[in-house]
């Protein structure tokens, strides 16, 4: 589904990704862990097409297409979704408008008819229940005045509505208390399916107690140094990241 080879990316002259290789198949859940500044968020940003990053080498193919050649909205319509680490507040653009416009853009791409207001509301109410969100939220501005936890829940709600093929989660656990983390995790888990891949970027192992990954990768200094199963995450939790770096440089 997602095939990343030798990906190099920089911001200005600062090289951040220095040859990332990653293979993600449908149904898999991957966790990319790493210390601060290792390039985790850059990887997520490059995959969804945020401006300011220059890809200097390598590629990322998604369902056989050159993902990096597509406009951000084109990636979204084809089923790539990023749950942002810091969702932006957009006063005056309400959540209902965004969800409906986004959903209809995705449906159009899939050859499905647009939903009318009633169908949309019916669908959205179910998903909001799942995320334990109040209906008043629909008429509020996108993320406007939301707490950190509400913003993260909103990201997962959007994901649940849009049903992406490839879901990227950027530090979704940061800033969440344990209750909010449970809600967010159950939202993500409800989306696990044989057709869908999930890639989580996270600093801490905590999220992985709730969303069990099939693969854990350690990203450090712009490269994936080690790949394992979820036991690797537990080891990182115990021993930190330094030993991975040391073993990698010794190899």
């Amino acid at each position, binding site marked *: 589904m997602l095939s990343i080879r030798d990906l190099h990316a920089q911001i200005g002259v600062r090289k951040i990704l220095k040859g990332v290789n990653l293979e993600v198949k449908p149904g898999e859940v991957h966790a990319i862990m790493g210390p601060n500044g290792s390039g985790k968020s850059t990887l997520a940003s490059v995959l969804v097409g*945020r401006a300011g990053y220059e890809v200097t080498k390598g590629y990322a193919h998604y369902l056989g297409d050159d993902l990096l050649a597509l406009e951000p*909205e084109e990636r*979204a319509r084809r089923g790539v979704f990023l749950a942002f680490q810091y969702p*932006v507040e957009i006063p005056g653009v309400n959540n209902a408008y965004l969800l409906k*416009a986004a959903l209809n*853009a995705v449906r159009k791409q899939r050859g499905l008819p647009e939903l009318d207001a009633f169908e949309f509301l019916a669908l959205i109410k179910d998903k909001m229940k799942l995320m334990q969100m109040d209906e008043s939220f629909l008429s509020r501005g996108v993320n406007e005045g939301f707490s950190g936890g509400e913003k993260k829940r909103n990201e997962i709600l959007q994901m649940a509505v*849009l049903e992406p093929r490839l879901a990227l989660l950027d530090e979704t656990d940061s800033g969440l208390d344990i209750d909010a983390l449970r809600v967010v995790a159950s939202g993500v888990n409800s989306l696990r399916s044989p057709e869908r891949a999930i890639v989580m970027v996270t600093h801490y192992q905590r999220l992985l107690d709730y969303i069990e990954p099939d693969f854990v990768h350690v990203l450090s200094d712009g490269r994936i140094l080690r790949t394992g199963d979820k036991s690797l995450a537990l080891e990182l939790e115990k021993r930190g990241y330094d030993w991975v770096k040391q073993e990698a440089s010794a190899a």
Partner: protein
Amino acid sequence: MSAMAPSPATAHYREAFERLQPQLGGSASRRAAAMQRFAELGFPGAREEAWKYTSLRRLESRRFVPAAPTTSSVDVPVAFVAQRLVLANGSPVGTVPAALGGFTLGTLTTASEDQLLRPVLGGGTERFAALNAALSTGPLLLSTATGQRSEDVLQLTLITTGAGPTLASPRVAVRMAAGSRARLLIDHVDDGAHEHFTNAVLDIELGAGAHLTLYRLQRQGERAFHIERIETRVGENATFIMRDSQLGAALARLDTNVGLDGRAAATELTGVFLADGARHLDSHIHVGHHAIETTSFQDYRGIAANKGRGVFNGKAIVHEGAQKSNARQVNRNLLLTRGAEIDTKPDLEIYADDVQCSHGTTTGQLDPNALFYLRSRGLSEPEARSALTRAFAGAVLARVDEPALAKYVHDELDRRLVRLLEVAA
């Protein structure tokens, strides 16, 4: 100083006035004095501060024919509200009812000329107010009785129309007695057939405790010239609210002058303008705090795109003795495309020491993070830009509490934003 020779344009309007004069009602000497005042002041020169960013050279070069009084009907857009009167080139179309939409109506045959054609003095548009007083064909008086309260909205559709380039001089006087309450919607349109010139005056006086909400929509065609003066005197505990949508014309200038004359008089002036295409839209506000405990709030949002140009000058003067007054101004501007320009000047002058005043001005572009967020959810760039632009204007439009008008303005912004953003993308 010796009198300067009148400019060709000034001479043109004087000659036209003399030809038209027999058909105009009211006292001939009053009309002539107004014409004389216009001739003295003439068209503004390039160095006049009030016209620093708006050149009238194009307007001055044209020879519009002042409209004669008429009662013939014309096609106008559908009304937003149930109670509406149409003025074609300033003349009421059909019989003017005695009362409509919460007001008592008067004309030159039934109402005082002192009220209908009272001179409007000062400011950059005094000359045009004088020209209007000379040429105004069917000045209309809207009045309320003491304590008369209405939640109705009276719509006046002011259309400029003619077989050639026409000068229309609509004039409306509003006199609200103590404790009365009313809502007025003024909709400026034209027939789009020629380059017309609309020179409008709205002269408002609010008695003690009176409350007027004025909705203004200027949606004239792309070739129109529009100059307007809104002169408002606000009495003790009275409130003047204006919701302005300046969307049309090739060149439009609106001067809104509000005198907070009585203790605790208040005004709230909010508006949005969209200077797209090659439109030049200029809004000047002048609020004078003359009494204690007076309050003013201005919130104007401007959008400019393509070769559009916006000018905003919001002035509040807190005069000596106007203690415990509160003056707030907000002006936010959005430049949607390269080549657009907005010149803004918030201006506070304070001559009292116990007051609260603030002003804030911003001019910028759409937030790139918000834009990216929306695109990352599948919205096209034009959709995302349009949504953010509507949100920008929406903060002010939310105050337009006349639903049909609010819907029209929202839809019109949508339509024009999507079109211009798709072209730009």
